[in-house]
Every structure is written in structure tokens, then in C-alpha cells.
């Protein structure tokens, strides 16, 4: 086999040598034969002629020799490539459009796959292996990826035969006290974590094994490159520097370089030991931490084998006394194996949207190529009649489309690779604003493989249909001349038209989805929230105290201070079962103090707010929002009505069960998720601040919010030294909620815009082509008295009917999607009137304009010349 490949290689790339050898071998034969004939008595001239005659047709022997080396296939491929090159050079407009359209769609898809692979798909590389998670999977398939220290140790011990390195890890957020109070994001890890991280510490050392279980007198903290910059301002001499983290003194023992990238989605700023985390937790009276177990497998061990090694382990699940979950090993991306299924599900519609764009691109190019090959149909028909096999002609046309698509992928790849990081930054901006760096993702060999595979699929997809269509046997008759010009045949026209209709339908779907998402995201604008989310600041203290409240109230720039059991705009506080007017309901309770409505400036529409005495005594009174009142008591007056709380104390809701009397009706606010709109289940009950209960402190800023944020950090550092303090305006929660909608909306808008544009280019090309083809017919009609307007109209009619058919096909698709989305996300406006009204109108207008430009040429056709050409 190797020999044969060597011969083929020599024949392909040592072409000149091969030809020269063949030439001299045959020349040698002729010379020897001539000598023999001369020796037999002939004259040299006669002998030479005789020798040539005996050997026969020299060229055909050479051809046969080349054929036996597989060179003919190469030659015909080179011929096809040259043919394709010539064809593409001859129509630069088509080539440029095709490269653009394919480049954009292939590049976008390669980008999506790269991002998806990095986060979700298997095998983030780590220290020469692929990253794995250990999970306990119960009978229902639900997975748990956090374990107690004892369980985790058991897994690591049992997995010694399968893992190259296994370690325990837990995410930590610690209060960092410097001149002000801030939060540091990091991980508690066992020492073996650093083995696979790559690179040596740039300064000092990493954690050692003893530190897993023994707490040093002054525990050490290892900083990442990002932590060193963000937390220490890139201090040139960081080693030994003290850091007060959640009230405990640590000292910096090492700094890692930027190459030590963790394979978590967010880069830790610091690492502390397991012993340090456990002692922090117990000192702050918190539950002991749970750990994820991660690692890389030994070479040659598969995840199935590793799961087998851990097969003996079974852990009892909380709340299910009898259930024992087996422990298995799974590959992971930047997201943990436990998160992956949810993301995978969410990625399906995104994947479909990207695939749709590639599909639209292919449909559009199929359309353009059909128009193009149809223009060459005479040439093709003649070649077919002259005996060229259909397969040969189809192959030639396919090589042309493949050259285009592969070239497009090669052009798109650098752009795609360069765009990943900026796009990731853009999407992660709300997270970066919290002071945490996302793990950068980059293009790799897979990006190239995916782009090239997609390009081959696309090339075949848009090339095969037109190639088969135009080489159909029944078309060969045309070469005879009788149908060579004039009316176009049914086949290509129908296919082209259907492709055009499909493109318009798909563009419509993408654009309507984009518009709906954008409209839903903009519904969260500040005016609609019900309070000024930019001026209401969450003090962000993990352990608020009376001291903190007192100091805040006295801080200049803070107009009012209040406490609540659940932050507005931070999701559902947790529903509570009640009975109202004989019905069972589940309502969102918030326990608030008497300052709540005043601080947030939520108007009391009727009745009254709470008084301090009620807050202190946990009186059984309640305030409901107007929307809640309307929903619960649609006919009667809500004031004076009763809500019966069934269960006892919940952490965020009413402290005691019993009948609560509605004493006030407040203005509507968006308090949970913005896409749920104004809350229609919001109930407020009074509660005084209690240091033992979970509570959030909100303040209203007067004047510059940024200055107030600084004051908050300073006050926190003094009043609650060991607590995390991350003050932020409530608008940041809103931004976080909006982020996925914004990203999805922008992606859909870009994709929809691209698809729409591609369709318009297709429409333009198609109409232009039609005008060229119907030149003679239009000329005759002009000569017979048709006005230019009429001629343009007749061309436009064809385009308009394709657009209308596209809309007719696309709108039901949109409606189906809206129904689906509406069912999945009850809070969003699925059928957004403006999206359904404006988008189709816009698309129609742009499409008709694209058709109008070439159609106008129909009016300029000079009847005489058009008929003469015929």
C-alpha cells in the first residue's frame, strides 16, 4: 500500500520526471528495434519507420501508461478545477456574492459550534487529558455533582486506578476587606488540583497536600493572574501580603501565570485550601461545604471504564431514604456535566436558527446557480449530445460549487476565529461587570474541521440540485435548436421559485423571532418596572446588621433605607400556599419593613402602608399590588379582605400561619422576572429587621448613584467586617435578566437580517435573470404596444407572488413558534403585534425593491434590437 501511494505521489508531483521517463523508455524501445532491423539488412530510415509502425500509436500507449498510474483521474480533476476556475472568473458578481453568502453562513455556524463545544460538549483539555466530572445519578436520571467531604474523599480513593489526577473543588465568594469592602471569587481546592492546571507558579508556590486537612495558623491563598490584577492591582511584590477574606487573615503564598487557565466557565481570582474553607464556614456558623469531584483519566481509560471502577460506590440521596445513586464519570466542557443537559436543550433552537441561515444561503445559491447553469444550458446540452456522460458534467458542475464553498470556508475561518473573543466579551459583559473574568474560548482544530465539513455539505446542497436539473436527458433535445431560446422550461423555473419562496419564509421566521425577542427585552426598560431601578441600590451585604442599618441611615447621599426578605428583580421569592375567597392560590410573599414602599417610592393606591409597630409585632396584615387585587377579587373591594396562610413560617414570607387582612393596595411593580411582567401574585407582609433571618438592605440614592455605591462599600467594611459586600443598583439585576434575551435577540436579528439580505440578493438575481431570458418576448410585447409600466409590472408580478407565497408559508411557521414559546415562557408576549405587522411589511418592501431594480430594465428594452437578436 505504501509503495503504491509512493508511486501515485511520484506520478502526481513528479509529473515532469514521470513523463520524461516514459518518453525515454519508449525511445529506447524504438532505438533497439531499429538496430535489430538494420542488423537484419534494412536501411536506417526504413528500419526507423518500421520500428515506429510496429510500436503503433505512441500517444495512446502513453495515455494507457498514465491511466495505469491513476493519473487520468487526477488529470480530469485538474481539468474540472480549471473549468470551475474559468467559469467563476467569468462571472465575478456571482462568485463574490456566493463567497460572501457562504462565508457568512459557514463562519457563523462554525462559530456557534466552537462556542457550544467549549461550554457543553465533551472534553475540555486539561493537563494532557480531557476533563471529567463525577456525578451521582439516581433512578430518574437526575444528577447530583456535589458531594460531602466524606463522599468526595471516598470517590477519590476509589478512583485511584482510573484517574490521573482527581481533586475536590467548591466555588467560594469571600468578602475582601481592603480600604472598602468587595467580593472575591475563587475556589477551594485540594492540592492535586494544581497538578493538571499547567505551568508552574509564577511566584511562590501552590497549595500542598497537608493544607487539605490541616489549617495553617495564617492560611495561604494562591492568586490567579486575573486575581493578582483585580484584587492586588498587579502588585509587584505580592508574596506574603495579608488579605482579610470574610473576616479571616490569609496571606498570599503564590501567584499563577495567565497560562494556568481553569476549565470552569469563570476564571477564579484565588484558590484557598479545603481546610481553610471548612474553618471559615464553621466560624461563620454556616453549613459545611459540598464539593465537586473532577479530574482527568489515566491514558487509555475510557469514561465507561472509570465509571466501572467507581461502580461499587452508592450514595444515599437526601429526602429519599431508600434511594442509592450510583456514581458515574462524565466528560465536561466549561460547564459542569450537571449543567450540560439544560444548556443542550436551550441550544436546540439556537442551533436551528444557525442551521436555518445556512439553509437559506444554500437555497439562495442553488437559485443563483440554477439561473447561471440555465444560461449555459445550450453549452451543456451540446456537450451531452456529443457524448459527455451525464455523471461527468454533473461532476464538473459540482466541483465548481465545492470550490466556491471550500474557498468561502477558508476565507471565513480567520474572521470566525477573530470574532469569538470579542463576541464572548460582549455576551459576558454583565458578568465581567461583577468583577469576574470568563474563561476565554478560542478556535481550534475542530473549528476548521467543522467549517470544512459544513462547506462540503453546503457545496453539495446547493450544487447538486441545479446540476441534476440542467443535465436531464429530456433537455438534450434542446440542442437541436427548436427550444434553444424563448420560453424557459417548467423544471428549473419551478425549482427556482420554490427555493425563493422557502427563503423568504425562513427569513420571515428569523426576523419575527428577532423582533419578538427584542420587544420582550425592551419591555424591561426602567419606566415599566414600577420603581427607579437605577436609584434603588441593594447594599449587597451578606450579613446585614442593625449597626449597618443605623450607619446607612446616617450616610449622606442615602435618602431612605429599608429591608426586605427578597430582593425585587432577583427572581421568584418562593410561593406560598394560601386560601383566598374559598379558592386555593399560590402567592409570592415578601416580608418588608415599614419603610419599604416609601424607599422604593411605590405609591399606595388605597388603604395604608405598614406602621413600625406592625413590623415589630409581625401583625397579620398585608398589602397587595393592584394587579394582585384585581386578580384575586375581580369584582369586590380588596381592602378588608382576608388571605389565609396555610403553612407555618417560610424564610421569605409570613412568620406565622393564619388570616391576614388586606390593609393597603400598592402600585404595580415588576418584582420577579421581567418577562413575567408586573407581578399579579405580589403580597407584602410586615416584618421588622431580624439579624437571624435572611434579609436584604435597600437604599434610595440621592444624586450620584456611583458615589453612594462607594459610601455603601465603606460603611459595610466598618459595620460588617467579615461579610461580603457587593452593592449594586437594582438595574444590574435587570440587566442580568435581560442579557440572555438581548443576546438571543441580537443573534436572531443578525441571522434574520443576513437571511433577509441573502434572500433579497437572490430575488434581485432571479428577476435580473428572468428579464434577460424574456428579453425577446418583452421586446415583442413592446413592439405590439405594451407600455413600459405594463412590462415592468408583468415582471414584478412574478416576484411579488413569490414574496406573498413566502409570507403565506412563513407566517404560520412564526405562529407555531410563538405558540411554542408562549407555552414555555408564559410571561413573554409571544404574539407581538408590531413584530407580526412591521416585519412582513418591511420584508415585502425590501424584497420588492430588490426585484424592482432589475425589473426596470424591462422597460428599457428596445423592441427592434431585442427582436433582431432573436
Amino acid at each position, binding site marked *: 500500500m505504501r509503495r*503504491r501511494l509512493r*508511486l501515485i505521489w511520484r506520478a502526481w508531483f513528479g509529473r515532469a520526471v514521470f513523463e520524461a*521517463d516514459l518518453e525515454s*523508455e519508449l525511445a*529506447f*524501445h524504438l532505438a*533497439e528495434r531499429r538496430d535489430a532491423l538494420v542488423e537484419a539488412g534494412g536501411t536506417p530510415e526504413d528500419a526507423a519507420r518500421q520500428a515506429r509502425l510496429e510500436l503503433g500509436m505512441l500517444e*495512446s500507449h502513453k495515455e494507457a501508461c498514465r491511466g*495505469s498510474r491513476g493519473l487520468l483521474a487526477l488529470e480530469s480533476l485538474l481539468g474540472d478545477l480549471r473549468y470551475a476556475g474559468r467559469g467563476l472568473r467569468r462571472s465575478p458578481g456571482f462568485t463574490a456574492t456566493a463567497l460572501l453568502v457562504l462565508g457568512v453562513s459557514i463562519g457563523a455556524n462554525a462559530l456557534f459550534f466552537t462556542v457550544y463545544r467549549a461550554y457543553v460538549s465533551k472534553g475540555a483539555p486539561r493537563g494532557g487529558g480531557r476533563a471529567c466530572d463525577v456525578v451521582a445519578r439516581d433512578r430518574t436520571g437526575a444528577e447530583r455533582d456535589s458531594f460531602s467531604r466524606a463522599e468526595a474523599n471516598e470517590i477519590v480513593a476509589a478512583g485511584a486506578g482510573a484517574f490521573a489526577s482527581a481533586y475536590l473543588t467548591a466555588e467560594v465568594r469571600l468578602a475582601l476587606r481592603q480600604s472598602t469592602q468587595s467580593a472575591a471569587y475563587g475556589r477551594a481546592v485540594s492540592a492535586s488540583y494544581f497538578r493538571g492546571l499547567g505551568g508552574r507558579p509564577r511566584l511562590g508556590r501552590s497549595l500542598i497536600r497537608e493544607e487539605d486537612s490541616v489549617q495553617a495558623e495564617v492560611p495561604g491563598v494562591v492568586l490567579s493572574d486575573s486575581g493578582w490584577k483585580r484584587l492586588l492591582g498587579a502588585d509587584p511584590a505580592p508574596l506574603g501580603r495579608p488579605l482579610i477574606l470574610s473576616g479571616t487573615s490569609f496571606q498570599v503564598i503564590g501567584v499563577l501565570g495567565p497560562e494556568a487557565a481553569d476549565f470552569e466557565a469563570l476564571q477564579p481570582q484565588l484558590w484557598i485550601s479545603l481546610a481553610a474553607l471548612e474553618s471559615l464556614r464553621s466560624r461563620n456558623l454556616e453549613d459545611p461545604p459540598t464539593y465537586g469531584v473532577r479530574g482527568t483519566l489515566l491514558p487509555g481509560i475510557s469514561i465507561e471504564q472509570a465509571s466501572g471502577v467507581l461502580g461499587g460506590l452508592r450514595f444515599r440521596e437526601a429526602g429519599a431514604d431508600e434511594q442509592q445513586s450510583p456514581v458515574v464519570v462524565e466528560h465536561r466542557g466549561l460547564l459542569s456535566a450537571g449543567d450540560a443537559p439544560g444548556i443542550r436543550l436551550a441550544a436546540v433552537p439556537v442551533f436551528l436558527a444557525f442551521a436555518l441561515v445556512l439553509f437559506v444561503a444554500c437555497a439562495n445559491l442553488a437559485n443563483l446557480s440554477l439561473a447561471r447553469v440555465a444560461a449555459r444550458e445550450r453549452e451543456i446540452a451540446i456537450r451531452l449530445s456529443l457524448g459527455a456522460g451525464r455523471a461527468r458534467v454533473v461532476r464538473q458542475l459540482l466541483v465548481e460549487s465545492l470550490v466556491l464553498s471550500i474557498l468561502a470556508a477558508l476565507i471565513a475561518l480567520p474572521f470566525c476565529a477573530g470574532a469569538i473573543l470579542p463576541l464572548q466579551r460582549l455576551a459576558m459583559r454583565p458578568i465581567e461587570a461583577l468583577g469576574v473574568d470568563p474563561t476565554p474560548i478560542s478556535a481550534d482544530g475542530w473549528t476548521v474541521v467543522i467549517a470544512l465539513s459544513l462547506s462540503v455539505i453546503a457545496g453539495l446542497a446547493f450544487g447538486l440540485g441545479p446540476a441534476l436539473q440542467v443535465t436531464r436527458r429530456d433537455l438534450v433535445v434542446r440542442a437541436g435548436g427548436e427550444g434553444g431560446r424563448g420560453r424557459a422550461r417548467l423544471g428549473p423555473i419551478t425549482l427556482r421559485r420554490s427555493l425563493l419562496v422557502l427563503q423568504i419564509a425562513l427569513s420571515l421566521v428569523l426576523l419575527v423571532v428577532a423582533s419578538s425577542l427584542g420587544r420582550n427585552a425592551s419591555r424591561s426598560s426602567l419606566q415599566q418596572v414600577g420603581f427607579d431601578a437605577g436609584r434603588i441600590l441593594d447594599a449587597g451585604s451578606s450579613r446585614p446588621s442593625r449597626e449597618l442599618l443605623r450607619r446607612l441611615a446616617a450616610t449622606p447621599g442615602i435618602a431612605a433605607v429599608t429591608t426586605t426578605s427578597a430582593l425585587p428583580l432577583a427572581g421568584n421569592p418562593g410561593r406560598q400556599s394560601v386560601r383566598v375567597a374559598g379558592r386555593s392560590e399560590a402567592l409570592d410573599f415578601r416580608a418588608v419593613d415599614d419603610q419599604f414602599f416609601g424607599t422604593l417610592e411605590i405609591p399606595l393606591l388605597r388603604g395604608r402602608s405598614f406602621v413600625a409597630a406592625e413590623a415589630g409585632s409581625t401583625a397579620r396584615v398585608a398589602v397587595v399590588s393592584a394587579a394582585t387585587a384585581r386578580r384575586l377579587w375581580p369584582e369586590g373591594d380588596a381592602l378588608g379582605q382576608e388571605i389565609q396562610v396555610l403553612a407555618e413560617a417560610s424564610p421569605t414570607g409570613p412568620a406565622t400561619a393564619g388570616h391576614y387582612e388586606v390593609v393597603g393596595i400598592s402600585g404595580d411593580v415588576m418584582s420577579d422576572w421581567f418577562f413575567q411582567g408586573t407581578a399579579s401574585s405580589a403580597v407584602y407582609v410586615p416584618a421588622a429587621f431580624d439579624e437571624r433571618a435572611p434579609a436584604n438592605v435597600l437604599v434610595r440614592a440621592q444624586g450620584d448613584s456611583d458615589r453612594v455605591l462607594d459610601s455603601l462599600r465603606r460603611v459595610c467594611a466598618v459595620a460588617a467586617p467579615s461579610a461580603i459586600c457587593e452593592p449594586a443598583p437594582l438595574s444590574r439585576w435587570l440587566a442580568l435578566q435581560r442579557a440572555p434575551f438581548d443576546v438571543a435577540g441580537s443573534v436572531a436579528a443578525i441571522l434574520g437580517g443576513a437571511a433577509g439580505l441573502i434572500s433579497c440578493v437572490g430575488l434581485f438575481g432571479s428577476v435580473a435573470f428572468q428579464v434577460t431570458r424574456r428579453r425577446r418576448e418583452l421586446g415583442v410585447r413592446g413592439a405590439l404596444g405594451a407600455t413600459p409600466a405594463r412590462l415592468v409590472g408583468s415582471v414584478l408580478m412574478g416576484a411579488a407572488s413569490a414574496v406573498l407565497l413566502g409570507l403565506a408559508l412563513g407566517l404560520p411557521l412564526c405562529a407555531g413558534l410563538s405558540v411554542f414559546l408562549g407555552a414555555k415562557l408564559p410571561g413573554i408576549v409571544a404574539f407581538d403585534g408590531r413584530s407580526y405587522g412591521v416585519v412582513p411589511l418591511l420584508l415585502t418592501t425590501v424584497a420588492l425593491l430588490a426585484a424592482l431594480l432589475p425589473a426596470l430594465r424591462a422597460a428599457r428594452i428596445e423592441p427592434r434590437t431585442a427582436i433582431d437578436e432573436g
Partner: protein
Amino acid sequence: MSTPPQSLLPGTLEVLILKAVSLGSEHGYGLLLRLQVMSRDALVIEQGALYPALFRLEQQGMIEAEWGLSEKNRRAKFYVLTAAGRKRLASDLKGWRSLVATMDLVLGARSLGLSR
């Protein structure tokens, strides 16, 4: 008395070439002469068919080629048999002999040879 020259049975050129090469390294023209001598001029091998067959056998790894000098000091391409070629020749010979024996049996039969 010499028999008139015979044309080749289809598919037999390659085995003849292999046999000719198996007798020692030789160039294309020499192989042609060799076959003529071996068949006592009974076989006519079309000269043009020889070279594509040689290329095919080389491509299949049955023979190897090397450039050298002929007796008359001309640059010529010499072919030798490879191990694979030797194996192929042996199996082709076996097949050929069994075919000839079978053909002889059939063509030389005087009666059906079946007796009860």
C-alpha cells in the same frame, strides 16, 4: 516446421511478463524478445500493449523498476520481480495448469466415461 504465430489469450499477457521477468532483470524490449524466444516465435505480442501492462504490474507492486545501461550503453529501465510478484506468478501458474488439465480432459474425452 514452424507454426504460424498465435495471438494471446485474453488475460494472459501479465502472467507471461511475470514469467519473463522472473528469469532475471531485463528492460521492456528485452522482455519482448525473451517471450518471442521462449515461445519459439509462436506468440505475437503487440508491442504497444507491453508498456501499459508493465506500468500496471509496477503499480500493483508485482515488479520493480530501476534505470541502468543496456549492452549498447543506452539508458534503459530494467524490471525485476518482487516477492509479491513471485507469489502471484506461482498462483497464476497453478491456475493455468489446472485450467489446461481441465481443458485437456474435456477436449480429449472419447466418450462420456460413465458406466453403470
